[in-house]
């Protein structure tokens, strides 16, 4: 009776309880989409979302610039706000288009948050992009009114940067690597920014040391001279101090830093040093 018609694996596929046939097949595009790198947060314009490609099989997955889109952040104005007890729906207009947004109100904090959101207000949204019957909408996690309006320009600059980064990296990857549609590390876009800042912080740390840095550079330059490398024992610190005309105290500070960084090393005793570059 029922048994003959009821196919358990088909009925529950995608429910998360039973592995469907599709997931068991070693489909490279699917397995990479499971990568946690694809869980990155993308700053986007509404136009980009409206033009996003549906990734072939999975009806709810979108791809922009070759990167799978899940969580997004947008900045725009609130239009057609409709508040209900359980949820709030509105259209977000960022000047490039409009997209329907939905925020479920479950707790007191949520209702507080959405009550402050008024028609025509500029907001920053974090949410999950979903597609249903060809319609794209956002399931909003957080919605926050914009108080510093420079955030608008900043958001669009972010969009441009991420677009440039993703599209250029994909191009660099070349046509040959078609079996791996996902970038090895798509979420590195935001990380890129962090890396850049950490480098900046590092260099500014050096900047703080100021004069010390100059002495370090001088010592390094001196130890890299061919004359300094002639002797296997390296150069005595007093000789360096004498040549560079700096006090031994200051010199030892610089030398300590250089040793810690692995730029130079002490040789036969604690007073002779050599540059690591020259071996």
């Amino acid at each position, binding site marked *: 009776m029922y048994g003959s018609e009821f196919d358990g694996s088909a009925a529950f596929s995608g429910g998360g309880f039973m592995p469907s046939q599709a997931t068991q097949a070693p489909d490279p595009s699917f397995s990479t989409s499971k990568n946690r790198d694809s869980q990155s947060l993308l700053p986007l314009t509404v136009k980009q979302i409206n033009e996003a490609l549906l990734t072939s099989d999975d009806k709810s997955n979108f791809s922009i610039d070759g990167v799978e889109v899940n969580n997004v952040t947008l900045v725009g104005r609130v239009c057609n706000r409709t508040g209900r007890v359980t949820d709030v729906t509105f259209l977000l207009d960022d*000047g490039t288009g*409009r997209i329907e947004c939905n925020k479920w109100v479950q707790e007191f904090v949520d209702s507080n948050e959405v009550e402050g959101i008024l028609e*025509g207000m500029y907001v920053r949204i974090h949410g999950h992009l979903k597609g249903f019957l060809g319609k794209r909408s956002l399931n909003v996690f957080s919605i926050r009114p914009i108080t510093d309006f420079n955030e*608008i320009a900043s958001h*669009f*600059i972010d969009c*441009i940067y991420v*677009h440039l980064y993703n599209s250029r990296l994909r191009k660099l990857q070349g046509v040959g690597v078609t079996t791996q549609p996902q970038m090895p590390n798509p979420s590195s876009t935001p990380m890129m920014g962090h890396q850049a800042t950490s480098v900046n912080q590092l260099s500014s740390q050096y900047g703080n040391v100021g004069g010390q840095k100059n002495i370090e550079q001088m010592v390094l330059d001196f130890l890299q001279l061919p004359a300094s490398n002639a002797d296997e024992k390296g150069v005595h610190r007093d000789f360096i101090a004498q040549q560079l005309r700096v006090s031994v105290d200051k010199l030892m500070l610089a030398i300590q830093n250089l040793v810690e960084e692995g730029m130079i090393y002490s040789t036969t005793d604690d007073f002779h040093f050599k540059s690591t570059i020259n071996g």
Partner: protein
Amino acid sequence: MDTSSPSVFVNAELLRVHIGKKVRAVVHVIQSDGEITTGKSTDEHQLIVKGLPHVSLMSYVEVIGIAESDQSIRAETWTNFGNTFDTQSYNQVCQLANGEFKGLFL
């Protein structure tokens, strides 16, 4: 309020390309008499905005409306951006949104 069509980021220079279309611009208000508001665009040109209520002088106002001529906009909606605003960055966004990265905006 009709915001169905996209509104392009513009400065005074880009306004003439979009006459008759919906635009958005930020103006630094110099004069406001309730009928016509005169302001400075993000690229430091004079713009006339019609249909704004009385806005406080020296404030930055974002206007969304129809570009009527190469130096006037009929406002449909507006947002006061306060008294401090980074016009230079906004101006750069205007240029990028109409130039190299038009595809993301229009």
